[in-house]
């Protein structure tokens, strides 16, 4: 099972999302999204612990953060 990645439109939303998740006790990391995981081009992703994927996505959506992709990173990068 890979690392869950939630893709958002910009670094501002990634940082906002990271802060929001932290307030719910979910640790996360921000990284640049690989183009293949987004049809829109440059974007940022928030990686969350396995098992927190759905919860994190729900929190972000509920707080108005637009999610443009959901993937799992499996290459170990």
């Amino acid at each position, binding site marked *: 099972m890979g690392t869950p990645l939630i893709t958002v439109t*910009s*670094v*501002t*939303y990634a940082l*906002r999302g990271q802060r929001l998740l932290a307030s719910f006790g979910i640790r996360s990391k921000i*990284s*640049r999204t690989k183009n293949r995981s987004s049809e829109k*081009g440059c*974007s940022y992703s928030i990686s969350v612990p396995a098992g927190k994927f759905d919860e994190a996505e729900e929190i972000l959506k509920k707080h108005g953060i637009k999610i443009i992709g959901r993937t799992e990173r499996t290459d170990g990068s």
Partner: protein
Amino acid sequence: MIYLDNSATTYPKPSAVAAAVSSTIKASANPGRSGHSMSLAAAEKIYAARRTAADFFSAADETRVIFTPGCTFGLNAAIKGLLSPGDHVVVSNLEHNAVMRPLETLRAKGIDITKAEAFAADDEKTVDSFRHSINAKTKMIICTHASNVWGIRFPIERLCALAHAYGLIFITDAAQSAGIVPISMNDGYDIVCTAGHKGLYGPMGTGIMLLSENIMPATIIEGGTGSNSVSLLQPEDLPDRYESGTPNLPGIAGLKAGIDFIRSKGTESVAQHEFRLIGELYRAFEKLPNIRLYTPFPDPEHFVPVLSFNVEGYDSEDIAAFLNNHGIAVRAGLHCAPSAHEAFGTLSTGAVRISPSVFTRHSDIERLVFTIKKLK
């Protein structure tokens, strides 16, 4: 040098501002563009500044804080992004050219403008003047929060309510008030534009445009945002929509330090200090028969701590040059606000403007009065 030109830009800046700028220049990458640690750290700095500004102005959220190269840029973005040919706008008669020049450009494209008269220390008459200027085609009221020449403070909460009662957009230019007068987006303003380098003590080249949740001007600048880059259309997401191009990270980091400085001092305490100094100056000038004052005694409800005057028999620029020769920096002339001078009959003479800061001392004002008394 005794520096009394803080309405142009505050000087000196707090040491924390210089430190923030310096440390950011020494170690920063382009924020929001790359995935390496330095770029992400830079993005975190911008985000922290955005949160600080959002908190300071009670913005709906930090994405509604748009960093601009100055107040003028923000006003241009707001005005040109919202008006269309056939629209009518009401402005005060004390606006800066940051408002009047974009409007004049739009006048050639079919925008109509009415100037509402300001009545110093009489909010009822000022609000009435705006009310009577509204017509069926009015789309927007734009009003400076405080005149950069006369210090006259407008009742923007009431003018905003008036605008909304008529279904109009309300924009305010807070270049001279932010950091001295509390400003809250909770009061319903559609757009607030301000400089970062005046009462917020940030570096020059910084500004903020605050957007309410219900407003989305068309863009006047498009370009790279580090987001949604496959599309040639400008992103809709904020703040990217209005922040194309590499941001002024050192400036924004400095602006955050400036806002932190003001918060640590307290806006009310800063205002009290500056009003005490301007009040002393006013009382001293009142006693000099060759000094011409144009406004009533500046009370905090109706003014910001800025005072302009003239000396009988002298051009305002001559007074500024005389003071400069005696080690005192002030600004004379028209202050980029010919409309404000026209309203007070000083378009041909200009005026000498005194604007203190949190760093101005009582002795600085005494020295100014002492020096002015040398003029015969």
